[in-house]
């Protein structure tokens, strides 16, 4: 275990040290300090979620994303049962991720759809029913298999301190994948988001792209899951696009802007977390801090857009 250079730094000296390490290239050559791992993971999460989240917000599918972020715990349980005995600490490899996100994405979409279509449950109720049931099932399974209540709690709260470099690689891969898929299908996704009727008349299947988006969301949330837990992923997925939406109404600016705000928020949150630890000796949850920073960013953007009179609405 190397000594963490950020130990005892306050908010501002944290930044000066970080930029110093960044410019001297120590970050890239030497070992990453745990603060830096957290920061980069959160930044990448911010980038990945703003790519996906923008479309979710535009298509009013965020409640489905909420249910997805719950059901992916079942996906993870399924993946662990299929591939390997339940070992949480090692992190996730690619095949686990793939199976889990496919199971979660498809199970959520099809069950919710099936309940509405074949069992004639009204839509909001079927969303609520499916994800709470699947989540309850996975909590019971996790608790019974590991004989430990703690994992279930960590699932909703996240644990930034347990992150290591493997997570960084994984989330980097996910962010890259999101970027690739979205830039490949940008035009199609855009049309589907704004005018599904036009899309199907042009031979672009809205159902296919909805499913694609759900699977992307599932993969992204799983990447974020170990860091911030299933619920705070939503703050990224919804909060960042909403914040960016206050500042611009052009889609191709919206995504980078959301990602930029997210990156800034992660930076500030990790620095704040270190600051509280160094100055007040209080360890605060970094995941909670990021969420609050995003909320703060929303409020600031809100007042900015109000002042300049360009208030955009989502």
């Amino acid at each position, binding site marked *: 275990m190397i000594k963490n250079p950020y130990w005892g730094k306050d908010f501002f000296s944290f930044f000066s040290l970080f930029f110093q390490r960044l410019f001297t290239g120590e970050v890239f050559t030497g070992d990453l300090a745990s603060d830096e791992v957290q920061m980069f993971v959160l930044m990448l999460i911010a980038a990945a979620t703003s790519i996906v989240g923008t479309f979710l*917000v535009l298509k*009013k*599918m*965020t*409640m489905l*994303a*909420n249910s997805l972020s719950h059901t992916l715990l079942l996906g993870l349980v399924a993946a662990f049962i299929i591939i390997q005995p339940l070992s949480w600490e090692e992190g996730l490899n690619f095949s686990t991720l793939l199976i889990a996100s496919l199971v979660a994405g498809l199970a959520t979409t099809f069950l919710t759809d099936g*309940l509405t279509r*074949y*069992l*004639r*449950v*009204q*839509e*909001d*109720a079927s*969303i*609520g*029913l499916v994800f*709470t*049931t699947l*989540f*309850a*099932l996975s*909590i*019971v399974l996790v*608790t*019974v298999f590991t*004989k*430990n*209540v703690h994992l*279930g*709690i960590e699932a*909703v*709260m996240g644990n930034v301190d347990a992150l290591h470099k493997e997570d960084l690689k994984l989330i980097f891969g996910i962010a890259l994948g999101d970027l690739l898929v979205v830039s490949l299908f940008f035009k199609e996704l855009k049309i589907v988001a704004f005018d599904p009727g036009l899309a199907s008349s042009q031979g672009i299947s809205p159902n296919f792209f909805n499913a694609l988006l759900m699977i992307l969301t599932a993969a992204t949330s799983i990447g974020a899951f170990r860091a911030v*837990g299933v*619920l*705070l*992923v*939503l*703050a990224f997925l*919804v*909060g960042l696009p*909403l914040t960016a939406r206050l500042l611009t109404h052009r889609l191709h600016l919206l995504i980078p802007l959301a990602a930029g705000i997210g990156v800034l928020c992660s930076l500030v949150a990790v620095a704040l977390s270190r600051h509280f630890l160094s100055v007040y000796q*209080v*360890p*605060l*949850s970094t*995941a*909670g*801090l*990021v*969420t*609050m920073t*995003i*909320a703060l960013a929303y409020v600031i953007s*809100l007042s900015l857009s109000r002042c300049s009179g360009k*208030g955009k*609405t*989502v």
Partner: protein
Amino acid sequence: MIWDALTDPVLRAPTLGSMLMCLASALVGVIVVLRKRSLVGEALSHAAYPGVVLAALFTALFFPDSEDGFAFIILIGAFLSALLGLWTIELLQTKFRVKADAALCFVLSVFFGCGILIASRVQFTHPLWYQKIQMFLYGQAATMTDQHVVIYGSLCLLTVLFIALLYHPIQAVSFDRDFAKSTGIAVQWLEGATFFLLVLAIVIGIRSVGVVLMSGMLIAPVVAAKQWTHRLFTLFVLSALFGTLSGFFGNYFSTEIPRWVSGKFSLPTGPMILLCASLFCFFSLLLSPGSGLLSRCFRIYKFRRKCRQENVLKAYWKGDEPDASRFFLWILYMQGWLRKDGAGYHLSPDGRHRAAQIVRLHRLWEVYLVDYMGQGVERVHRNAEEMEHILTPELEKELTILLQDPKRDPHHQPIPGKEGL
């Protein structure tokens, strides 16, 4: 024995407590689900979490010895913070015109994040209290005492009383908001009161179900109950029944399952309660006589079989060879529609009558389509092939009068006469 859960002095309080809590949420759930606002419950239950944490911190700082006071303060804290969440959702939606789903998700995650943030502070300074907060994530009924049951029981009674007193306005608003408005019901006030009630039910419920799964308990009992009745009163009663039963069994299994797998761990009550409610829901969706999946499949099967039977009889009537298996024909024979003679089957008098009736309906419909709908003669056959199985005797009567009992169809085929008309 399973009933020990109700009589055993240690198990009694948790069991009764979870039953009461689920009763409250199942009742309020009816109103919320009927208004199609059930996902608000999801956001509000998470919004209650920072209140729980703050209340714990408050108690830890000022009344560290008061065990009963803690339950009470937590109720107030959760209530206030859920109300704040509700207000924020309304503000985002109306003032800043954020879409409903995004507003719910945003409030949900931000409030929950705030809760986690404060919880991490509590974990550091007051680890014992942190343990108590964690119970509210997935619910833990086991540590409830009789005093808690009294508190939760009276709150639950409050909910029941409220619904009982406002039953008629609630009914009117749930099914026809405009009508309710026109009869002078203060709809806005009532909706405000309903949200108040929702917050109350959530605050009551999170002790045993937990904030994460609370919204499921607002939905599952109601969806289950909706399968069995179309009357609002019965819906309330059945939903309350399903909710209470899930509370009972969920609590029971959450203490029993760790014993079965002989593990030294505690299973949170919330997931088990919810799974029980979902099981009720699943079986109701599958088995209920009116709208259940099985009964609907059976009705579809019966209708398809009727159509096939009638097509076979029609084929015999026209003198064609029917397209059906020997078994199918044998069944028709056993039912008395067909008669056997040497080489094959032919129509019995009953069968002849029924086949003629079908042909009559078919051709009447064709006449109607041509004369009244102005469709081309060559195009009406396909539609009539379907309608002949659907037309009722009443409709036939109407058609006969409207078309003045025609003798020939558009293809110049004779229409079999209606005896006794």
